[in-house]
């Protein structure tokens, strides 16, 4: 391969988007050509600088509320709070409402029909909430809630450090088990820190990793002996959940990165975790 070709394909190589054959050819060329290797190093550094340095503009809370209310307007559903407010007003101040009353409509049939319809709506919405979730679904809900809360309340970490030898001892002293902690910076998943959390009726360790501008919460707690060891993925509300287990621990990784990134994360984590 000549330099010109290597330079042309360098971005694809850097982004891991080339086919294995071409990738290998470039790798070979970079070993042989000092100049191209330097160019590649500078290019990698620039790419990292963009990923780390460019500000990520998160949506303000008001925007979320604005969107939700405009969607409700679009579908014609009024949110339950304002409906409840009106119902209260209705019971407490009948006099104020009287001006609005339309004459000439016999009340009994329509009122009866309305009451039945209202009751049916209330009952159906209550019933859908009462459906018992399965244990996995319930855990998934807890995991996502915990992940979202950690990002929302600015309480991502209790101990912020990219050094596994700081995070691990800290967690060890707070928990009745010693979770494995590894830094995966060189694999593109830098360790941000650790946190205590409470899930599945027990204190658990939450390790926080970063993938570009996204965060991965890895929840770790001791595995029950009969727990299934098969990896499992769940997608909910746009979040990816990936579960696996080894002889000692249960792992649940939660993030909004794509499934492939999360799978890579698991592989790297498993490779770097000492085997028992």
């Amino acid at each position: 391969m000549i330099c010109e070709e290597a330079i042309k394909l360098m971005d694809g190589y850097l982004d891991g988007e080339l086919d294995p054959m071409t990738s290998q050819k470039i790798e070979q060329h970079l070993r042989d050509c000092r100049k191209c290797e330097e160019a590649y190093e500078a290019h990698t550094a620039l790419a990292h600088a963009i990923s780390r340095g460019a500000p990520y503009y998160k949506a303000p809370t008001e925007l979320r509320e604005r969107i939700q209310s405009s969607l409700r307007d679009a579908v014609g559903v009024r949110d339950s709070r304002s409906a409840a407010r009106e119902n209260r007003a209705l019971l407490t101040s009948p006099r104020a409402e009287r001006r609005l009353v339309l004459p000439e409509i016999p009340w009994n049939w329509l009122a009866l029909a309305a009451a039945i319809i209202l009751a049916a709506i209330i009952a159906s919405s209550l019933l859908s909430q009462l459906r018992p979730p399965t244990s996995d679904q319930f855990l998934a809900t807890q995991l996502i809630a915990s992940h979202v809360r950690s990002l929302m309340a600015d309480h991502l970490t209790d101990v912020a450090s990219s050094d596994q030898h700081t995070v691990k001892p800290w967690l060890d002293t707070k928990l009745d088990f010693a979770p494995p902690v590894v830094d995966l910076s060189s694999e593109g998943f830098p360790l941000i820190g650790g946190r205590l959390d409470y899930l599945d009726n027990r204190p658990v360790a939450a390790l926080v990793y970063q993938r570009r501008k996204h965060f991965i919460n890895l929840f770790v707690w001791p595995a029950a002996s009969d727990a299934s060891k098969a990896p499992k993925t769940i997608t909910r509300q746009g979040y990816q959940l990936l579960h696996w287990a080894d002889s000692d621990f249960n792992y649940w990784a939660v993030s909004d990165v794509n499934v492939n990134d999360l799978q890579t994360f698991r592989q790297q984590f498993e490779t770097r975790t000492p085997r028992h």
Partner: protein
Amino acid sequence: MALALKAQHSFETEDFESRRKVVKFTVLRKADPDHVGGAELASFEETMLPHLDAAHNLARWLLRNEQDAQDVVQEAYLRAFKSFGGFHGSNGRAWLLTIVRNTSYTLLKKNRAVDLTTTFDEEIHATGHESASPAAILEHAEDAELIRKAMDELPVDFREILTLRHQEGLSYKEIGEIVKIPAGTVMSRLARARAKLKEYLAVRIGKER
């Protein structure tokens, strides 16, 4: 299901004497959707709201203005909801970002045609050579403000592709689908965007000295 109706009537005794009991109805919802619409909305929000930050970030980079970005994102969510029936894929983020991008471009075309032409200040950037070395660029690599300013100066299609790749971590294929170009073009455009950014960074670093 039937229309949802709300009934109310007065309880005061005087009404019995003065006139027949009357009742007022308010139509709470438009025809039919009390289940269909609600359920669809819930499913839409569950799938799409987690990508609100990504949507806002992309719009903000494309429009370089917070108010416009918010308006576009709101509009994009409404558009997305209307065509949600046509969404059967698994990649909600890419689907939503496509709509955010289209909505942003509509606004850019309407209000600021100048933003769409890939002109930039030739005066500032007419140096023709890099006035800072790659090593100097790397020294400043942690300077977020510098990178933001340099990125903001890039033409819109470069800002777009850098955001999608570096901040959202999307694959060439996904980027190609959002931007509507082949994957090969994604690579060459990314290369040009990075080279341009490097050049701008070099000029800025050179000026600081």
